[in-house]
Structures are given as structure tokens and as C-alpha cells.
């Protein structure tokens, strides 16, 4: 297990370098000037030149990349062009806020998806299965930002029972785990959870239906095991596939959602990225993408390790 763990950790190093290179290149290859947003109308060529030199944009791209990378490995993500605040200080609270939203969405999505998947899987081919499958397809297909707007109109504007935007009357710094604050989490979390719920439901349905067809299930029935015990066996066999899907969904949700966070003005990584994109704040953009990518890699690593614990064949492969 330890060897497998070390091997998987080692794999993350080239992935991280690749991710950093791709994210740096993509951002710098995009058309437009990274300093455009902070450059006032009529800025003189001296102002433009001094600004370029101040942020190091006058140096060759390769040097810029290496400088950025060497700083990043020491935890220095640089400073925001727009605010002059440290990028890491910007990303930290945003990651926490997205994490909170992501975990809430995963809990909702996982519970609903698992439940629907099991119902459909056990009743494969029946009317119940078709209803659940239709619901899952609808969940996967519905644009979550649109659902967010609909939820706002219904629950915030028309019924007035839940707030429409933000993280509370005092902002994220005053967020507490009581109803006054948590009610701000409800609508964005539901909006974010429908896609993973749909995907998990479909995956669980397919896997459970597949496992139920296998010979060993008949053997278990023949041995007189109770349906509950059989269900545990089904769950154990379905777990690796389902875990992989949940891991991917979790990583995606923890990365935040630009659209949902913007619709709800939720100050997470998606909102931060949106701001950084529109203001061409390259240091924030690069830093946030890198952190999120590494998050993705990390979550996948954890999922791999859990999967291999459930199914030792994965290690051998």
C-alpha cells in the first residue's frame, strides 16, 4: 500500500508542473493586455512602461514562468494587479467559502443521487426506474445557473423565505454556523447539487443493475442471505465505480462554480476567478487555477487510495 501511495504521490509532480505550464501559457496567450484593466484612459507610454516593468511583464515569457514557478513553490503567489493584496491571501478565504458550498452541495447531491440510483437499480426496467432515470437526466441537463435564478425568483423574490445573494448580513467574515448564516447557503448549494445528483444517480443505477445480474448475487440468494445483507454486498461491489464518480464531482464542486457563485454573489473561488478574468488580474488567475488544479489532483489521489482499499485489483493494475 505504501509503495502504491508513494508512486501515486510521485505521479502528481509532473502533473503539477504540466498544469502550471498549461495554465500560465493559456493565460498569457489570451488576446489583450494584462495591464489593460488597471491602465487608465490616456496612460502615457512612460506609465505603461513602468507598469510593465513593475509587474515583470517586460521580460521574456520563459523567464516570467520560471520566476513565477520558483516563487510559487515557496508559497509566494505574488500580488494582485488590481488590489495589490497578496494572491494567497485572496485565494485562502475564497477556497474556504467554495469548500463550504461544495461540501453542502456534495452532501445533497450524494444523498439524493445514491438514493435515486439504488431505487432505479433495484427496479431496473420498471416504471419507477424510468421516472428516476428521467429525473437524473433532467438533473444532468439543467443549467445550474438557470436553476439558481429560478430558485431565487421562487424562494427569495416571491416567497421571501430565503435570501437571494451573499453570505449574510455582515459578509463572509461574520458567517456563523447558525440558521441566520446557513440560510444563505441553501439556494446555491441546491443549485450546485443537481448535476452531481443526476450523475451519481445514473452511475449508481447502472452499477447496481449490473452487479445484481452477476452470478454471485444468485449464490447469495441461494445461501439464504437477507436482502439487507445482499444490498451490502451490492454496495461493496458497486463502490469503486461510484467512488470514482463522486471523487470527480467533489473535486469539481470544491473548485467552485463561476456561474453559480456569480449568480449568488458567493465569494468563493468561482467568484474570484470571474473577477480576475474580467479584470485580467493574471497573478490571481494563475494562482487560483493552480490551487484548484492541485486540489483536483489531491482529491483524485485520495479517491484512488480509497478505491484501492476497496478493490485491491486496482493496485496491481
Amino acid at each position, binding site marked *: 500500500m505504501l509503495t502504491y501511495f508513494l508512486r501515486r504521490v510521485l505521479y502528481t509532480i509532473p502533473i503539477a508542473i504540466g498544469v502550471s505550464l498549461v495554465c500560465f501559457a493559456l493565460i498569457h496567450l489570451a488576446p489583450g493586455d494584462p495591464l489593460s484593466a488597471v491602465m487608465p484612459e490616456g496612460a502615457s507610454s512612460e*506609465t505603461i512602461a513602468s507598469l510593465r516593468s513593475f509587474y515583470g511583464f517586460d521580460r521574456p515569457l520563459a523567464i516570467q514562468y520560471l520566476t513565477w514557478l520558483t516563487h510559487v513553490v515557496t508559497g509566494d503567489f505574488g500580488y494582485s494587479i488590481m*488590489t495589490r493584496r497578496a494572491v494567497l491571501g485572496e485565494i485562502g478565504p475564497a477556497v474556504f467559502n467554495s469548500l463550504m458550498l461544495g461540501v453542502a452541495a456534495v452532501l445533497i447531491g450524494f444523498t439524493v443521487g445514491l438514493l435515486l440510483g439504488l431505487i432505479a437499480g433495484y427496479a431496473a426496467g420498471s416504471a419507477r426506474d424510468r421516472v428516476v432515470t428521467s429525473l437524473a437526466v433532467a438533473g444532468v441537463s439543467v443549467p445550474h445557473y438557470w436553476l439558481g435564478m429560478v430558485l*431565487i425568483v421562487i424562494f427569495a423574490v416571491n416567497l421571501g423565505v430565503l435570501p*437571494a*445573494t451573499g453570505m449574510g448580513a455582515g459578509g463572509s467574515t461574520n458567517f456563523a454556523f447558525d440558521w441566520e448564516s446557513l440560510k444563505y447557503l441553501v439556494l446555491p448549494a441546491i443549485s450546485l447539487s443537481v448535476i452531481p445528483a443526476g450523475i451519481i444517480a445514473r452511475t449508481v443505477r447502472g452499477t447496481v443493475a449490473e452487479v445484481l445480474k452477476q452470478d454471485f448475487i444468485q449464490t447469495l440468494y441461494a445461501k439464504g442471505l437477507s436482502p439487507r445483507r445482499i444490498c451490502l454486498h451490492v454496495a461493496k461491489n458497486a463502490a469503486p465505480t461510484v467512488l470514482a464518480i463522486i471523487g470527480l464531482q467533489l473535486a469539481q464542486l470544491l473548485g467552485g462554480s463561476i456561474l453559480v457563485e456569480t449568480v449568488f454573489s458567493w465569494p468563493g473561488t468561482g467568484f474570484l476567478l*470571474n*473577477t480576475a478574468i474580467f479584470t485580467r488580474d493574471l497573478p490571481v488567475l494563475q494562482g487560483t487555477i493552480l490551487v484548484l488544479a492541485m486540489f483536483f489532483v489531491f482529491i483524485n489521489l485520495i479517491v484512488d487510495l480509497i478505491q484501492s482499499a476497496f478493490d485491491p485489483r486496482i493496485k496491481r493494475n
Partner: protein
Amino acid sequence: MSSKLVRKLALAVVLGTMPLASPALAEKVLRVAMTVADVPLTTGQPSQGTEGLRFMGGTVYDGLVNWDLSSADKAAALVPGLAESWTVDAADKTKWLFKLRRGVKFHDGSDFNADAVVWNFDKLLKRDAPQFDQAQSVQASQDDGGIASWAKIDDLTVEIRTKTPDSVLPYNLVNLFFSSPKRWEELGHDWNKVAFQPSGTGPWKVDKFVPHERVELVRNADYWNPKRIPKSDRLVLLPMPDPNTRVAALLSGQVDWIEAPPPDAIPRLKQSGMNIVTNVYPHVWPFQISLMDNSPFKDVRVRKAANLAIDRDGLVKLLGGLAIPAKGMVYPGHPWFGKPSFDIRYDPEEAKRLLAEAGYSEKNPVKIKFVIAPSGSGQMLPLPMSEFIKENFHDVGIELEFVVMDWEALRARRRAGAWAPENKGIDGVNNSWSFGDPDFALIKAAASYEPVPTGFNWGRYNDPKSDELARAAQTTFDPVEQTKILAELHSRIVDQAMWIWVVHDLGPRALSPKVKGFVPAQSWLQDLTPVEIQ
């Protein structure tokens, strides 16, 4: 009377008085949803363009000169701010003396005086000064680029020298704000720390700042202008870039005021009792056009035809009535409008006639290419508006093609000029424009000697008469006389169809019925001090 009854009565008295007592004790809070995606810089020179200036400039800070934002009926004019008066030297027109207002204090209690003025100019312009701040310096460079030197004469007098005789200086000084040197000292010379506890001289003081989320300002009861002491106790400013989110926040009572509601939400907002407040302000939605040799717009007849081809009334309908048709850079009734002889109107027949006269026909249409962006500051609804105009142009024999790019890329193209290699084949750029000061409005847009990036002449418009008037406006220091020259210059550029002017935005904002006292000034900036929640 039993003790139980006494207790009940006492409780009834307490409960009965509570509703009376609570409004008196409650803080009057005005919550505003801005369109910006982030809180503008709080340290002195706000970022995020004019919306930054509107909410983090004149609220917390003052300029030496301020805008008079007290009237909805006339264009905002300059009034004394931290300087009580100013004069330009009769012999040397680059030398200005500013007499500072006595007794003004920063929010931290320190004195505003000539030392503070010099310290702040050093903050923006003297790169080796310890307080020099790159972030603020960049934001100010649009307004301080013409300043050559500054010096203290005495505690309440400052001398400012410009690089060339420049009558527009007072307009530039409106946007240069003064932060407290004492606060910067107290916070260890760290502007990032100052951002959380800034200290200006303005009518509002910063109480709380949460990056990306909100800034809360409280009333400065000691403000030097008693007429502008805020009526609200607290002003909460929230960045909310998504227009639908702003609408939902207003309708659900989370905010009291939203900037720029989308046109299609106006009926719903009105139905819910919200007030839609509009007024003209110095904004125009134009196409800045190329007059380079290879552009059809080199011919004034084509420029005029393009201006006559647009059904502006139809466009205003598309915009839900939230705009007025443009008849030039500034709107009729503005002091700089003048008396242009070319009447910009919808006249497709005249447009066709002019094009025919210029040698174009159905078989040989005018072919042009404009750069547009799907969104951006002051851009209104650029895609449907551009499509509408494309149809109008097609009807008269102008075939318009778009090059769509994001807003910052478009701004970079505008800064580069029509002659830049990346703009080869481009005949126009759709960059909404502010005409708040004479430089932006007319002088630097029209003068051939003011090319981008330092000037605003993008398309190489070159007209000796316009140059002559621009120079005269720059060097005329009598405001009345200068206004006359600017009106002449405006008439000239309209007659020359320098740009294609389309509409003026009406700056809509939606206010909860509880919001009282707002006077929509004819300005990009607004005064929130008379506003209160009832």
C-alpha cells in the same frame, strides 16, 4: 388590582412602546448593489473606472475641486472642494495657486493642509517617495499627467505647475483625492493595511472592508460642508456584477438601490413598486471611426451617411426607453452642444444619396469592419444594439462586419490607434465615451496632435479648424469664454461627422420606495449624502 394584572399591563406598555422606540434607535442603512465585480481601491484613488470614483471617490475623499451634484436639471459644474479658490498666474499660464480650505480634518483627526497636499502628490507622482503607491499612481495618471510640479507656499497655499498652459486642470483635480499621511504612518507605511482603515476628508468614513464582498461606510458628522453631512447613518456598498442578481437582491429586500437594472427587468421592478430613476449624464455610445487612407470613412459623405442611417428612436425602444438619441458627442441642451449645421437624424434616403454621391451603389456597397465587445463599462447592450445598426446600415448600402472580442482586448485595440498593425482593416471601434471634462469630450478626441494612447484621437481625425479650436479651448482660462469655444468645437466635429454617435445612456438605477432624497445629477458621479431610508 392583582399582581398578575399589573404584570400584564406593564408588559403591554413595554410592548406597545417598542415599535415607537425602535425606529428612533435603528440605524438608517442604505444598501447599494454596484455593477463592479470587486470593491474599488479604498486607499485614495479608486480603481474600477467611474463607478469606482462614484462610490469610493467622492464618498470617502474630496478633491481640491469637487463636482456640484445637487441639481438634476443642469449639467454638473465645478465647485470649490478642499481648495476654496484657485487662480492662474496672469503672466505664466502654467502656474496655478490653490488656496486651501481652513479647518478641514481627515477622519483620523489630523489636519488637511499644504503639507498633506504635497505628500499626496508625492504619493502619486514621485517614484522615490516612501509613500509612492504604484496602484494609486496608475489610477491617477489619467488626471495628473499634465502636472509638472507642486509646492507648498504656506500652510494653506499650494502652487501647481502644469507642463503646458492647460485650462482643464481644475477638471483633472476633481479626481485626485487626498489620503491621510498620519494614517499611513500609523499603519507602518503599508498601503495594504491602509486599505482596511483608510482616512480621507469626505462625508463618509470607512467602517468595514471585506475584500471582494463589501465596504461599509458611516456618516462623518464632522464633515467640513454641513450641507453634505449624510442623512443615512451607514452606506453598504456591495459588488454585484450579475444584473439579474442585482434585480433579485432588490426585489427580495436585500438591497435598497441597484445600479444599471437590465431593460427587460424594468416592468417587473416598476410593478413591484420600485422607482426607476434616470437622467442624462455625460455618456455617449458611439463608434469611433478610422479616417485612415484605406477606410471609406476618409470621405465625410460616408461618415454623414452612416450617422443618418441609424434609426435611433427604434434603438431607444429596443433599450426600453433607457436612452436618448444622440445628436453629437454631447446632448442638446448641454453647454458645449453649440449650433451644429449637420442634424444627426434618421434619414435613410439622404444617407443613400450621400453614398451615391461618394461613388457607392448597391453593386458596390461600403464595406466596413468594427470591433465590438459583448459587454463592458458603459457599453449598454452592445450585441443587440450593434446587430440593429448592422441592419440599418445594410438598408442604405453599408455592409458592416463585426470583430467581437472581450472588453479589455477591445480597450487595448482602442489604445493602439487605427494605424496599429493589429487594427489593420478595422474601420471603427465601439467604445462608450464619457464627456465629463473638456479633454475627454472634445479637445483630446478631436485634436490631431492628441493621438492615442495619451490623447483620445483613435482614428487620425485631422481637421485644422478643429485643431485651432482645441488649442484655443486648452489655453482659454475664462470659463465662460472656454465654454463658447468648446461649443464651437463641438459644432465643428458634428459637422465633420467625426464619429458615428448613436445614443446617450440615461444611467438607470432602481430604488426601493423607501429610498428618499436622491437627486440624479447629470454626471457619472452622484451624491449619496442627501439620500435616506424612510
